[in-house]
């Protein structure tokens, strides 16, 4: 019997799900509502200078990388399985599309983060 390689995707899915459950909502509120409107946060929280400084620091790079990539892997897995539930068993094509986007996003985030010196 061929061993399933699902644990890789399942672990990324689980980690992303856990992370998004813990901080996803808060991030939406901070970046989407509080910071732009200045409600409860100083108006310059997401100013170019501050975001640049955050991105230049290693902890900042790591945080951004983890959030971007794990959220993507979580979404990819969820979408792939939902397609299957809906009766779309595109198999390899669906797999490549879903996980390919996550892999590409992961790579792109690494490249982008490393470029910000």
């Amino acid at each position, binding site marked *: *019997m*061929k*061993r*399933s390689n*699902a*644990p*890789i995707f*399942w*672990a990324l899915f689980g980690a992303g799900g856990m992370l998004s459950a813990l901080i996803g909502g808060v991030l939406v509120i901070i970046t989407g509502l509080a910071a732009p409107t200045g409600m409860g946060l100083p108006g310059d929280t997401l100013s170019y200078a501050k975001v640049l400084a955050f991105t230049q620091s290693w902890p900042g790079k790591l945080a951004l990388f983890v959030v971007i990539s794990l959220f993507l892997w979580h979404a990819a897995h969820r979408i792939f*399985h939902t397609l*299957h*539930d809906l*009766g779309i*068993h595109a198999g390899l094509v669906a797999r490549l599309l879903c996980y390919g986007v996550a892999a590409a996003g992961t790579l792109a985030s690494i490249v982008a983060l490393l470029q910000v010196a």
Partner: protein
Amino acid sequence: MKAAPRTIRIEVLRYRPEQDKEPVVQGFDVPFTDDMSVLQGLQYIKDEFDGTLSFRWSCRMAICGSCGMMINGVPKLSCSTFLRDLYPNTVRVEALAHFPIERDLVIVLDDFITKLHKIKPYIIPKEPRALSQGEYLQTPEQMAQYEQFSACINCMLCYAACPQYGLNSSFIGPAAMALVHRYNLDNRDGGRAERDPYVHSEEGVFNCTAVGYCSEVCPKDVDPANAVNINKTESAKDYFLRFLKPKGAQA
């Protein structure tokens, strides 16, 4: 004082391979009393209206697991589902979903039986044991580890409930996983390594998407979904940590 019998309409999905190209619905008006189950309704039909109606049953007390069928679209044991609770609506009775129909309400259960064989649902001793060593002793705590999962009566309601099994019947499925878990958790058993390859395989636990309907329909509170999901974690741990294990060590 006994109430006069009422009459309930039972629609049965019939399939008689020698005459039906595909399953057809046949309705019967069945007089019933408050103590009658859906199974007894079917027996009434067989006795009074049509002796060719086929269905499986044995114990009539929710323990043999033979009488599972779709009742108004939900997998249920027909012997523990009562007509009085369905009245005055029409009752629709069909063969268990996701299985091929052999005849009327009788399904072909070869797939499940094959899976049952594959998981080795019996105690595989850790080491050979002589009769003179006497019986195994087990503490209540040791028994509590697996007891819930040993309550499975192989009724297959969970397979009829599982959308993933419906989409891909090569999936090991809920009850077989509950039984894998039952034996793996038994301190007398040493067979995990023999069961693991199937659990870890492409037909194994990871086909489950945590829907949970299997546990909802289970008449014995086995909670097969729990067994499946615990084993996803176990399987993933093994996947990543197997290289750290000394050769030949047991999981």
